[in-house]
């Protein structure tokens, strides 16, 4: 099976050794070499490689964030000097995890696994949900990465006003801007600090910092009024959750 490969590492020697090893591997074409996560997301969107050799520690976007953004479209093999990410890597269904320094034989093994995985063609996995599952208990997202074609937007979590479900997507409202992310509201909710983000309604996750007041419309219907004047419906169970926190 021919493989189209993209290499992602911010260190030139690390890309160099991959390039050299892969040059001798049968039926492998290197379609892109990326020095950071943004380039990687762009390369996946533009060139649709079959496999990504992905460093974990990189500036701006780390390997796990890249996987969160492109994991549906490409098989990922992590490469890193840090063994502590291995468990997390397999939880997000990385195909393999290469510890630097690795040799030719180990790389060939990884390529065999990639071919197996691609041959099996499992149903598209929910990469963000897997990434959520891999998060250490008690640690929460500090920023959201959202892919828009080949562009990547990084939104610090304290800039998020609220998040709303829209079919298979969530709409992230931050100030004037709204961006769509392919993820369910429940899986995003599980990645965020529950003391800051409250599910006030089946369709709304609210940043508590933005809440100005609650307004009773009728006996069972309440509205959350945000600091900027926007209004969100609050369900009965949402109200109970708010009461618990406030």
């Amino acid at each position: 099976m021919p493989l189209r490969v993209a290499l992602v590492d911010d260190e030139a020697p690390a890309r160099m050794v991959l390039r050299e090893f892969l040059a001798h591997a049968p039926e492998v074409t290197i379609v892109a070499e990326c020095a950071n996560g943004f380039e990687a997301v762009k390369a996946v969107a533009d060139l649709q490689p079959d496999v990504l050799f992905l460093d974990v520690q990189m500036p701006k976007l780390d390997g796990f964030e890249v996987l969160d953004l492109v994991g549906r479209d490409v098989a990922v093999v992590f490469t890193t000097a840090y063994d502590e990410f291995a468990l997390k890597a397999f939880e997000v269904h990385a195909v393999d995890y290469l510890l630097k320094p690795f040799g030719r034989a180990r790389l060939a093994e990884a390529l065999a696994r990639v071919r197996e995985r691609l041959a099996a063609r499992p149903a598209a996995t929910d990469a963000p949900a897997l990434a959520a599952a891999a998060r250490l208990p008690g640690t929460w997202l500090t920023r959201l990465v959202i892919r828009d074609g080949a562009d990547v937007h990084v939104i610090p979590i304290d800039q998020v006003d609220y998040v709303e479900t829209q079919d298979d997507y969530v709409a992230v409202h931050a100030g004037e801007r709204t961006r769509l992310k392919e993820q369910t509201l429940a899986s995003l909710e599980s990645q965020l600090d529950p003391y800051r983000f409250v599910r006030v309604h089946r369709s709304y996750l609210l940043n508590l910092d933005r809440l100005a007041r609650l307004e009773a419309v009728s006996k069972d219907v309440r509205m959350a009024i945000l600091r900027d004047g926007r209004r969100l419906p609050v369900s009965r169970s949402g109200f109970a959750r708010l009461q618990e926190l406030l």
Partner: protein
Amino acid sequence: MLHPVLHHWPRLRLFLLLWVPTGTLLGVGPYLAADGPAGDAWPVTIWGLVFAAAAQASYYLVRFAPPGSGAGTLLWRVGGGALLTVALWSAAGWAWFQLLSPLAPAPEALFGRFAGMAAAAAACLFVAMSAVHHALVAADGRADAQARIHAAEVGARESELRALRAQVNPHFLFNCLHSISALAGQDPEAARRMCQQLADFFRDSLQAGSERLIPIETEVALVARYLDIEQVRFGNRLRHAIRLESGVEGLRVPPLILQPLIENAVRHGIATLIDGGEITVALTTDGERAVAVVENQFDPDGRRTGTGIGLANVRARLASLYQERASLTAGADGDRYRVRVVLPREAA
């Protein structure tokens, strides 16, 4: 505190050996001097032995003197203790001889003639015992203080060693080996050069780590070597400048004290920037103190990558070496992170 004689077996053995002759002499000596018949000497022997044992109590007078009491107070306590003990002992002796007079009449009959001499000897014995106790308490105190100082030194040395072992992050080595592996295919000469640099760096840091203080020039050379090695990984993303101001020549610093700071600057600074940045190291003096400032660019919008362990280690080392005479302050200013270390000037 335990009794220095009763809870110390070699001393207790010595005491028991001396106790019988001393006690016997104390009771029988004055009695025989007063022409007491030897056949009736056993009550006075027991009497003497009792005092020789009771004199051990003088320890408590010595040990539990109010803190800070001078020699005068001590003499008063010992004198008073001697008088009281001897008086009680004499009274007890008188009653004891009365009781035994049907069996041995001589001690009771001669009591007035030997009691004064026995009391004087007993008082002397009590004072001598106090002096011995005083000397033992002082010696034990010194030994305790020595042990405490020793324990503190061992503790400081251990934390020092722990800190040194933590200096060089193993991931630095893994990444270097990966770079060497990469260079081996494309540029074998560069791979060899990097092996050499890495070996030199580790050899020099081991050598430096075995010293208590090293010349600042040696420390700077180590930092420069480390940065040269990291340069292979980061290429032109890593730029650095090291500045030694006049006045720092010959200063001596704890080995590898800057190393964790430089490592942080690379890992949490340069490595977070797509286009890299600059690390500057400036060494100056400020009167009686040496000042090192390590500054690097970093991505203020990035995830917090540091755990603070590196800085905490350096702080702990400074505290164990210099207590409050050294300091470390760290903080971000825009896209720059600055760590400032102030050390006392150490003579060569």
